[in-house]
């Protein structure tokens, strides 16, 4: 292993690593080359950077200590949850230290009457819903990775999920945060009652991709479980007709809990996996519709959705027979990304949002782009939100293919932005899309963001190298690119 540079600012002779070991215990500090090797990537495998050390705090005092020592040595640090992020957010650039929050995994308080819970950032998303189920409550944001991803990561990425359509993203469900600022101070933002007055700093931190500090406690909203939930599958001959059904359902004024489209290639992969749910492998696309609410209302809505689907060309619209089947449908939907791994060693999960009415046309363009670059591209996405996830299966060891993947990815993003869309719906910018920020934001827009960042982290010690383009000049930056002048959002 390369010898580690000694710092000028720390105690004489003591390396940062030694100080960290002393502060939090030797067991909690990983420095062997292979330890660091496995932390070189998150869910985005083709962006890698090895940390200089990984530290596992056991409580917030550990976090404060770690941050202070890193600062003293001038070494940047990066919070990390489960590393399921898809934009390279949890990798450490600039020889930084990873602060692995996975073991801060305690649910501290459940307040069923006030409908909130206080949790540590390493709590796994799905575990919270499980823990509050007996109160008739659940935590609404449900990323497809919910069985593994942490609530801390969710806050940082402002994660959404299939149920975002009705329930909103993480930001709608975080009431208060406790965090360690990049200078080592522990602060409380927001309040469990919702609004606390003053600037909405909770809102600023949600979606900040770990660049404003390290969240050590979250107070999140719990939602009451709806009286009745029905899930059905619209079986369509192709993706375009499934998109038409989505348009018709939304236009009719219905607000389903979820509207998800899975295309044929994805169905095939899922059905070959442990998450197989009996989705028809001969369908061109499946539209998963979930309706929830008061029992009487849901019953009527089911019929209306079925009608819309049939009119748009669905051959069948079966409703899940029981809770077990419903769970199988969702497991299949949520295992879809991973199942694509069966096709090739790597998977690039894209993430962009387009206005709903343009879905059919954009999807066609995206498939054309995939074909033109000779790539295996599939689509599984949050159709109700216009949030696309074109997935490209590839092998990062093949430089030619890698180049085509990146070129196609860029073209896809440009296509979405030109149609009035945005470059990420829920996976964040990270290292992956920082150079595309200029497609969407003017230099002045970006400067406003930089100022906010500087207010929290003037020295850019916390997760540096993410979210902001390295180059300042962006010729294309132009609000028109966002289609503000033509297409209303929503």
């Amino acid at each position, binding site marked *: 292993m390369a010898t580690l540079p000694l710092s000028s600012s720390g105690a004489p002779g003591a390396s940062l690593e030694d100080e960290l070991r002393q502060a939090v215990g030797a067991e909690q500090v990983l420095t062997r080359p292979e*330890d660091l*090797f*496995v932390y070189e990537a998150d869910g985005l495998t083709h962006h890698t950077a090895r940390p200089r050390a990984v530290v596992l705090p056991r409580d917030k005092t550990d976090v404060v200590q770690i941050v202070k020592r890193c600062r003293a040595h001038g070494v940047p640090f990066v919070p990390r949850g489960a*590393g399921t992020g898809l934009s390279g957010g949890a990798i450490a650039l600039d020889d930084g230290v990873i602060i692995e929050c996975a073991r801060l995994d305690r649910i501290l308080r459940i307040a069923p009457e006030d409908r909130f819970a206080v949790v540590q950032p390493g709590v796994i998303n799905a575990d919270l819903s499980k823990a509050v189920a007996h109160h008739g409550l659940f935590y609404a944001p449900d990323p497809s990775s919910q069985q593994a991803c942490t609530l801390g990561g969710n806050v940082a990425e402002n994660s959404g999920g299939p149920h975002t359509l009705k329930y909103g993203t993480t930001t709608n469900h975080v009431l208060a945060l406790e965090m360690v600022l990049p200078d080592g101070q522990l602060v409380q933002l927001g309040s469990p009652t919702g609004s606390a007055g003053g600037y909405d700093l909770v809102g600023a931190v949600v979606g900040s991709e770990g660049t404003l500090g390290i969240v050590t406690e979250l107070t999140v909203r719990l939602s009451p479980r709806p009286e009745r939930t029905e899930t059905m599958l619209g079986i369509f001959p192709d993706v375009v007709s499934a998109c038409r059904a989505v348009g018709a359902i939304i236009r009719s004024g219905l607000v389903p809990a979820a509207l998800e489209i899975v295309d044929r290639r994805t169905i095939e992969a899922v059905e070959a*996996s*442990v998450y197989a749910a009996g989705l028809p492998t001969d369908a061109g696309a499946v539209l998963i519709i979930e309706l929830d609410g008061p029992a009487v209302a849901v019953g009527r809505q089911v019929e209306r959705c079925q009608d819309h689907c049939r009119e748009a060309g669905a051959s069948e619209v079966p409703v899940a027979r029981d809770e077990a089947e419903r769970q199988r449908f969702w497991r299949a939907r949520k295992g879809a*990304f991973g199942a694509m791994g069966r096709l090739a*060693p*790597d998977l690039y999960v894209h993430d962009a949002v387009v206005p709903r009415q343009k879905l059919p046309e954009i999807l066609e363009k995206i498939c054309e782009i995939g074909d033109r670059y000779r790539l295996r591209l599939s689509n599984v996405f949050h159709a109700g939100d216009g949030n696309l996830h074109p997935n490209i299966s590839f092998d990062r060891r093949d430089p030619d293919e890698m180049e085509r993947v990146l070129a196609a990815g860029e073209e896809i993003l440009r296509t979405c932005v030109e149609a009035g869309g945005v470059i990420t719906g829920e996976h964040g910018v990270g290292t992956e899309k920082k150079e595309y920020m200029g497609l969407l934001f003017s230099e002045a827009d970006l400067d406003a963001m930089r100022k906010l960042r500087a207010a929290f982290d003037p020295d850019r010690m916390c997760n540096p190298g993410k979210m902001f383009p390295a180059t300042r000049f962006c010729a294309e930056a132009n609000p028109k690119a966002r289609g503000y002048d033509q297409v209303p959002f929503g």
Partner: protein
Amino acid sequence: MSASDSSPGPDLATLLPGTLDCVHCGLCLSSCPTYLETGRETSSPRGRVYLMRGLAEGKIPLAGVLAEEAHLCLGCRACETACPSGVPYGALLEQTRAAVERAGLRPTWARRLERLALRGIVPRPRRLAALMTLLAFAQRLRLDRLARPFLPKRLRDAHALLPLVPPASQRRRLPAFTKAEGERRGKVVFFEGCIMPELFGGVNRATLRVLVQQGFDVLVPEAQGCCGALQAHSGDLETAHELARANLGALDPGDVQAIIVNSAGCGAALREMDHWLGDEASRVASRVRDVCEFLDEAGLRGALLPVPGRVAYDDPCHLVHAQGVSAAPRHLLQAIPELELVDHDDPSSCCGAAGTYNLTQPEMSQAVLARKLDSLEPVDPDMIATGNPGCLMQLRAGAEGRGMRAEILHPIELIARALPPSPPS
């Protein structure tokens, strides 16, 4: 150790294809007991697969973190049933452990202990029986307890797990042939296992009793031997393959419906024999069935007697994750009148027994066991049912340690209890 020991040998290249199935999605993380315990990516399935790929691609050595992780991994394969991409984790682990073994990278005591036990005793019925006789004798005279303080720590831990060895009369092997009762529904081979008849003879007799009562002729071929699972898990693939080959002939008398196994670990190994021996083994491998799975498929005939009580069913890893059997034992138990099946959290997570793991990694084993007991304790079941000898021992020791009153049983024992008494023969 020379440098060449840790460089990937030609056979390590075979690791690569399996690791390429991993897209690094992380969906397996929360199913992994060692990750949940440590929070370390290195101790997670994704991290371990990444290390294996790194080894196969020559980026990292075998010695060090990977060798340690290969043995800190429980081999529970919960990651396999969580993985949407179909990463063959069990096979990758087996190859990695074999490489660790070949390179001589394990602590000497662990190798010696396992070699002695897994090559010298377990697969040799006479020696195993002799040892058990000795142990039974010592236990009756309480000599073992007297000796305890003088034993090295690891043997003390092992001692704590060991159940009372049953008297010799209950350690007899089963008859080579037992005729079906009532209308005959078919003929099966029963795989007795090596530890089972010694320590869990009652479970084997219950299995035989149920099969026969349900109308199956049962053959117990004398030439059958140890399945090789423990040897393979410890990295000794050579012995494992030898044992499997010996079983190939013994277990295949031709015209039987199924080869019935009641130990999840053995069942998984026998079912995957073709991974070791190739197509020649697939005839045998494809007919292996867990006893509960077989009975559930065949359907229980006749009325069952009540077995009152609240039962928590805990899935053995090598049944649920390696063989994909989880509904069958529950179905069978639910069919028993007055038996109430109660739910506990994470029934399909590992109990920490994991073959010889509780001896080689006592600390992690205890931590994993503690999680399991934490989920079982609040349910306060009258009985806990699980279908694997290692899990039975681990849960018995664990439940006793916490003063839990639950009786720990194999599900087939509960089914046997629900059968009407045999007709006088």
